[in-house]
């Protein structure tokens, strides 16, 4: 290797900064338009991972943002509400992991308090569906970068659980609506809560029993070694 080139090559690390300052506008424009890129600046070739049908991460982030905006449209049309909602939707699209989708859901619930209570309408059921979808998709895509590939089976695996919980919740909402029209507001809520808690407790107990049943029996005690001394010997 030529010493001249290797020495100059090392110095290009320092010269990069100087060169940027000294560049003409045309060179900068050329770089921006990717006309005179050096070979090292071209995008690197990707590693191919062969999976089934898939979507890009940013498709789903966009979907989350749109769901958030849709939920906002169901709540109301106050400008302040829209400003906060758009900010949160952007935040969710940029970073769907963490607590942001749940914060959005909580704020949506609190925003409902500013609307005078009325009978349950289709909007309420749709809002319940949308917010549940939002908080489910957010953590599921938590680790997926915008450019990553998300296999469609990941999403289809979420569907059964989502539908079961959603169906149960919608039934609860329907029962609530039916009861609330008959002025049993607090009574029904306590009843529904009790039913849900009882069901949850039953599931936990059943699971614990199943886990205990699957555990192998404890090992038989081993014989003491002949030269083991007893206490006090």
């Amino acid at each position, binding site marked *: 290797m030529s010493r001249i080139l290797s020495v100059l090559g090392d110095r290009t690390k320092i010269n990069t900064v100087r060169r940027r300052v000294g560049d003409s506008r045309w060179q900068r424009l050329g770089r921006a338009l990717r006309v005179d890129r050096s070979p090292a600046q071209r995008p690197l070739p990707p590693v191919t991972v062969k999976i089934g049908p898939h979507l890009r991460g940013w498709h789903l982030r966009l979907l989350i943002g749109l769901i958030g905006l849709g939920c906002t449209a169901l709540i109301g049309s106050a400008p302040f509400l829209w400003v906060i909602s758009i900010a949160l939707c952007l935040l969710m699209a940029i970073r769907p992991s963490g607590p942001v989708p749940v914060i959005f859901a909580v704020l949506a619930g609190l925003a409902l308090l500013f609307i005078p209570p009325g009978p349950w309408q289709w909007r309420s059921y749709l809002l319940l569906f949308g917010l549940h979808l939002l908080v489910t998709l*957010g953590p599921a895509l938590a680790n997926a970068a915008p450019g990553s590939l998300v296999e469609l089976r990941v999403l289809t695996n979420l569907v059964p*659980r989502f539908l079961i*919980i959603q169906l149960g919740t919608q039934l609860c909402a329907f029962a609530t609506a039916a009861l609330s029209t008959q002025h049993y507001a607090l009574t029904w809520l306590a009843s529904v809560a009790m039913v849900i808690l009882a069901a949850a407790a039953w599931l936990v107990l059943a699971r614990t029993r199943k886990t205990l049943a699957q555990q192998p029996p404890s090992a038989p005690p081993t014989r003491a070694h002949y030269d083991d001394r007893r206490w006090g010997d």
Partner: protein
Amino acid sequence: MTQSQQSIEPSRQHRWVLSSAAGAWAIGGVILLVVGLITRRSDVAILGVPLIVGLVWTWIHRPSGAAQVQIYGASMAQPGEVRAQVDLEATPGVGTGHLRVRAQGYRATEVLVDLAQPRTIELAMWTVRTGRRAVFDIDYLSGTADNLLRSGPLSAGPIEITVLPKARPVRELPLPFRLQGMTGPHVSRRPGDGDDLHDIDLFRPGDRLRRIDWRVTARRLAPGLGVSDLYVRRTLSMADASVMLVLDSRDDIGPDVATWGDSAAVRQDEATSLDLAREAAASIARRYLDLGDRVGLEDLGRLRRPVAPAGGRQQFHRLAQQLAWSVPEGEPKPRRRPPRLPSGALILVFSTFLDDEAARLAQIWRHAGHRVVAIDVLPTLVTHHLTSRLATAHRIVAMERNDRLTELSRTGVELVRWHGDPAAGSAAVDVALTALARTRTVRR
């Protein structure tokens, strides 16, 4: 073909933790339920139900065991698509796996895959580089389907794959000045047991009877006399060529001149000088071995024993492996004496000739009577983006190199340029090698 593989130890994986979203689900659900109860708003309270129920569901169906990741692939490959497989095996409860697959010089790819059942995922990368390479480094994160529970990040790989040089077809090749032995694929200039006629001579003790040329003998008979002298047909003997490939593995430079220093890495989708040298050596060795000649290998970058000349298919595999394993190893030690090569062998020097060492050795071998062919493996350079300082330095180096090559030609070393692009360069290489093959300057 053997396989190289890497796996994650199961003991390190058995750690499931709640994600930050799980805490948010619990707090958010409770807030919505409590606020709804306090304000007597059922539409608010019901929004908290899916969060609480979902969290309970995840806790009930939490994974119990460890997931296993195993990556494996063939230890040898050809330039082109290099492949490997990842086996993912998860216990019940694990829903998704997040993989980030990396390779040096390549853009990492992230995938979120379903892990409800054990599965195998295929990885691939396109390479024009050869040699020993560590590829497919995997970072792995598994979680439940909703990702509320997940295991810590783990790593697997990389696996080591040796990308062997690909032999390009070559039509004709030069032969050494002096062929050796009494058998082989080439016709030598010495009388012996062959097919081509040398001359017709008187029968002598030791000549075979079947070589007697009865027509010539009859024509030479004196009228009225019996048989006096017998004449035999003498033929040229067959011989084989000894070829030594001398690889200059001290340099491994890419087409981008800006990467010749240490400031930037050579791109992985561009063949370097060493890749070209490996390809050229493998192509030429393949052709000679197919003809039945003996080929050996000497590496100028290593002070080790050379691969002795031999023939056969096994020798090609040995040479290809040695070529793939030759890499620059730090600052090379200068050689006081040139490596000893078989007498009468044709010497092919594969080098960039950016310094004097390879050229000096080629001249010494030429002066010793060998036929020496210098194969120039410098890639087609990219210089349009160089700064003025680098461009000046490159111009100086290029001028020195041109002087060196001119001096080589003057001392009788023949020069061939090996082009990297097979589509455009094959014809030029073939023409140059054929011209050398048809040049007969010295008797064999």
